[in-house]
């Protein structure tokens, strides 16, 4: 067995669920060492040290890692690389930014969005928006990869306590600087961690209808709210709601697609959901081909009725 270095993504307060999925992937490849980078992140390192499967935590605590910029994080991975057979991050915006950069620096061809691990050198990954799966074998001595969170169960956060080691090589960054972040206020569960997702598409016609019709149903189901690319492009909701090939990949227990036709790029982001419900006025919409329960009709009359029906449940 090898040694797998797993990048632990966090928001300064807590570890992202996807990092725990990445640990499960890492455990299939070797002993997992978790790397936590940030500024004043003792509490994150402690939380990482008790995740099941983690044998050691390396913590890089420095101002340079404050905003998870790709340049210093990739340099950190390059510094740590010699001890590991596999370097893994979840395929989040951060994972996708740092793994290929570090791979380039290490002269390694990275493997993106792994959904299956066959052996230490062989991996399955989707291509063509998930219309095909490619099994690829890597001849690199060290593998760098991002893994799709929904393909690996999250490692439970209550294992034995692993030792924490401090990384104390100074890493400089003069090339990039954090300016600002625009994080839309969202009281609902996070898309990638939600058990239920209610998504809207172009059929909603405007942002007001999204708020009026989608949000109440989502709240009654304790669901996250998602959207198709068309709805985001049209400005109904912010970009971080987008589900699809280039948005977020989700696999909740229940995915409700409302007024979404089901372009392959959208299906790529949600077709692994356990149960899919589609509500659309066009009975030929491709979304019905993946839906367990389809309802053909006008969403403007169906949604208020669904809202009342859910009231009766509560």
């Amino acid at each position: 067995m090898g040694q797998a270095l797993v990048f632990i993504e966090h928001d300064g307060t807590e570890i992202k669920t996807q990092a725990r999925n990445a640990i499960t992937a890492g455990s299939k490849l070797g002993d997992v060492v978790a790397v936590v980078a940030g500024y004043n992140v003792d509490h994150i390192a402690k939380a990482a040290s008790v995740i099941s499967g983690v044998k050691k935590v390396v913590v890089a605590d420095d101002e340079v890692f404050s905003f998870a910029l790709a340049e210093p994080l990739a340099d950190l991975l390059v510094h740590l690389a010699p001890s590991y057979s596999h370097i893994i991050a979840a395929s989040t915006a951060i994972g996708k930014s740092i793994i290929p950069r570090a791979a380039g620096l290490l002269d390694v061809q990275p493997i993106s969005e792994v959904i299956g691990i066959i052996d230490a050198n062989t991996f399955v990954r989707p291509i063509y928006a998930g219309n095909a799966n490619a099994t690829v074998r890597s001849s690199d001595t060290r593998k760098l990869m991002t893994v799709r969170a929904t393909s690996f169960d999250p490692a439970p956060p209550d294992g034995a306590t692993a030792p924490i080691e401090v990384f104390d090589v100074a890493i400089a960054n003069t090339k990039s600087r954090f300016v600002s972040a625009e994080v839309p206020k969202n009281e609902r569960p996070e898309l990638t961690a939600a058990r239920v997702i209610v998504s809207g598409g172009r059929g909603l016609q405007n942002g007001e209808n999204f708020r009026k019709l989608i949000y109440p149903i989502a709240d009654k189901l304790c669901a996250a709210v998602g959207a198709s690319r068309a709805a985001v492009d049209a400005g109904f909701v912010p970009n971080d709601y987008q589900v699809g090939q280039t948005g977020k990949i989700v696999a909740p227990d229940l995915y409700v697609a409302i007024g979404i036709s089901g372009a392959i790029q959208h299906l790529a982001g949600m077709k692994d959901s356990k149960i899919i419900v589609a509500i659309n006025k066009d009975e030929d919409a491709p979304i019905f081909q993946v839906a367990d329960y389809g309802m053909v009709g006008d969403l403007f009359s169906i949604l208020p009725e669904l809202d009342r029906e859910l009231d009766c449940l509560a």
Partner: protein
Amino acid sequence: MKVLVPVKRVVDYNVKVRVKSDGSGIDTAGVKMSMNPFDEIAVEEAVRLKEQRVASEIIVVSVGINACQDVLRTALAMGADRGVLIAATETLEPLAVAKLLKALVAREIVQLVMMGKQAIDDDMNATGQMLAGILGWPQGTFASKVVITADTATVTREVDSGLETVALALPAVITTDLRLNEPRYASLPNVMRARKKPIEVIAPHELGVEHSPRLTVVNVTEPARRAAGIKVKSVQELVERLRKEAKVI
């Protein structure tokens, strides 16, 4: 400032791809090919930079077979100045492409590389980040807004939690996301004009790049299909089935 825009020829995004029956890959025979949509956005952004007189020259580059000249012509018709085809008989992996681009950046003394965040065929989302790494340049991935001043690129990025803005010291690599701009259609006169713009064809070894592939494709398979479900007649039936049959609410 010189801007380099790499463009990839891929199966058109509207095509429903089919896996070859022997599992060796995707059937591309007779399939419509186009410029990778994210690369179109990169070309558009570069052309806008030229219109704002920020960019002095736009060089578009593609790596692959001769037919890749088609996507170079498309980019030239959109407003790029000249094209380079790095001739390769087979598809090269991102690491090889990044090395070739690095060599071209050095030869052309480019200050900005603007490229699509991912190709819609292999969905790797890697070449830009790898190129930035091996050049030692900063990277602005998943850009939805780009502002260039004398020595800085300010890039607003689409990230998981919303938007993030970073300032990059030029030279830099920027990878484009969907909402950066809407690419223009080339007008007929511009298409005609593009035919006269130069395309240089060079071999990888002329750029001093030797690369043996690290990834081999063992097989390509079709993912398991979802079984078709049922149509419900009423909202009551839907809620009932979700509760008692699927047990998800």
